[in-house]
């Protein structure tokens, strides 16, 4: 059928349209399908668990995340410190709970920016083509090659002090991370655009167009559901790099400000002590992996649940 090259017949079109018609699933439908998808259910449970830990953990767990104890530096896990202590004798569990909160905030924030800028521009560029496509792809090429580090340094220096004063350390962190997503959205845009380039030539789109469907409607009705999977996958994968990038930024003094932790920061702080106390690298790394795996499988699950035709 791919090779037919001929306009689809009306009958085909109708069939295709029917096959592709995926209106938003009704709520009860969604939950019943979710219940029958164990992986999605488990991932959802774990994800909720992680969020609950990050949100309420620091308030419930009594140890301080920032108070040092120079008598027990780099201690192994014990009854006093369930996950041991870091290189200044601070309780690792307390830091991890606090750090997860910071890392999740940053990840959600950067991904929102990324999806908003990248997916939206990629969709528009791929679909409308022409001058818009040229502008968006050139802009994307340019920003992709741009030294994000330099931009982050500039932004942190120019706006950092006033933002820190008003919104605290996390405000500055979001500012710097935001400046990084300015150079990272092109990747998402390029992925989406190339997918749209293929999709818009497919029968259900050409057919819908020949039937006089207006363009925004085609985009929302046909293209959006089809790129959703890719956007979800790309952004869940991105979360790991956002968390790590935050740590790399802090190596330059542009990430979270000490003594506050983030997952990436905990890993970079513990790395030099890998051989002295590997636990301190292991715990935050495991947390990072857990977040990435959970979010990825959750993304898979949600996609399957939202689109019945996806599960085979």
């Amino acid at each position: 059928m791919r090779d037919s090259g001929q306009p689809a017949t009306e009958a085909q079109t109708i069939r295709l349209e029917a096959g592709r018609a995926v209106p938003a699933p009704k709520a009860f439908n969604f939950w019943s399908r979710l219940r029958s998808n164990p992986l999605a259910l488990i991932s959802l449970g774990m994800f909720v668990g992680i969020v609950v830990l990050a949100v309420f953990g620091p308030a419930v767990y009594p140890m301080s995340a920032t108070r040092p104890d120079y008598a027990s530096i780099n201690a192994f896990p014990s009854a006093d410190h369930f996950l041991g202590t870091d290189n200044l004798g601070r309780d690792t569990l307390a830091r991890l709970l606090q750090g997860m909160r910071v890392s999740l905030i940053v990840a959600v924030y950067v991904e929102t920016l990324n999806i908003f800028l990248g997916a939206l521009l990629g969709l528009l560029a791929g679909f409308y083509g022409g001058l818009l496509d040229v502008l968006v792809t050139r802009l994307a090429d340019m920003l992709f090659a741009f030294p994000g580090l330099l931009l982050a340094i500039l932004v942190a220096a120019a706006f950092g002090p006033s933002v820190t004063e008003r919104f605290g350390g996390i405000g500055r962190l979001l500012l710097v991370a935001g400046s990084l997503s300015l150079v990272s959205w092109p990747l998402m845009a390029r992925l989406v655009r190339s997918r749209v380039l293929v999709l818009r030539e497919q029968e259900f789109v050409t057919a819908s167009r020949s039937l006089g469907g207006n363009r925004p409607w085609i985009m929302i009705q046909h293209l959006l559901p089809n790129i959703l999977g890719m956007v979800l996958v790309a952004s869940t994968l991105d979360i790991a790099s956002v968390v790590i990038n935050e740590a790399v930024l802090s190596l330059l003094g542009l990430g979270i400000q000490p003594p506050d932790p983030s997952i990436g920061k905990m890993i970079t702080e513990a790395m030099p002590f890998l051989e002295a106390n590997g636990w301190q690298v292991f715990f935050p790394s495991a947390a990072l992996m857990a977040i990435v795996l959970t979010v990825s499988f959750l993304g898979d699950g949600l996609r399957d649940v939202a689109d019945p035709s996806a599960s085979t």
Partner: protein
Amino acid sequence: MLKLIAKRLVSLPFVVISITFITFIVGYMAPGDPILAMLGGRTDPAAYERLKHSYGLDQPWQDQYLDYLSGLLRGDLGLSFRFQGRPVADIIASGISVSTALGLAALAGSLVIGIPVGLWAGVHPNSKRDRVGMALMLMLYSIPSFVLIGLLRWFNYQFYLRGLPSLPVAGWGRPEHWIMPVIVLASASMGYIARLTRVSMLEVQRQDYIRTAHAKGLYNRRVLWTHALRNAALPILTVIGPSIAFVVTGAFVVENLFSIPGIGFLSVQAIQQRDYPVIQSTTVILALSVLLMNLITDMLYMAVDPRVRVEG
């Protein structure tokens, strides 16, 4: 296709000019001073003024930029600040070939492993093999590269201690120097590629012609490998673009941690030393390579699926 190439060539000068301009402006405004970096933290106002003058940094910014641009037109990339008086072209020339070779090796490695794993998982979605395979890939992906390097070095040291063959843990020049960086660089992008391949495969499978083929009673595996794989080729091609991007970004960390004299290494060192002429040139080179890679992937799309129209 010639038209595509011609169009891209026309837009080339604009991209170069805008990239150099933005880099220049950001560099000009960014805090940190190349002259101070040169003076190694000592304060000697007379020496400071002398150096500033000899590098033309006391000129107004427009003049500095125009000087740079006119040099660029003559094929002169200017002189490095840090390596006093050394031509930038001379500094980055060897870096380009090192980075290209390393990047291609890592790209080949990650494609050769990532695509089959992704296909394999996508053919049997939600099976145990799919889950385990993807979980492994995701774990490789979510380990920060500096942690992976630390682990590899530790194992390597244990080998060395026991008189077993071991690898050089950093450096460049001998064939053994390639192994660790390629493993680290490939393992991150491998996960990315496997996952994107898997989702492309899933999305192709739920297309109607596959279902029609199934309905026609065609044998499952044949449908997959003949129909689906051919159609998945295009989305998989789109994976190559981002994975090149991925390898380029990864090279910044990996080249630095392994002391490999490539472009990523030079850029980071130049940013830290505020060596603007070098930063400008590495940025332009990165941008050009991104443009080139995009052009190649777009041409491949057109070759694989003639219906695809790519604006250029």
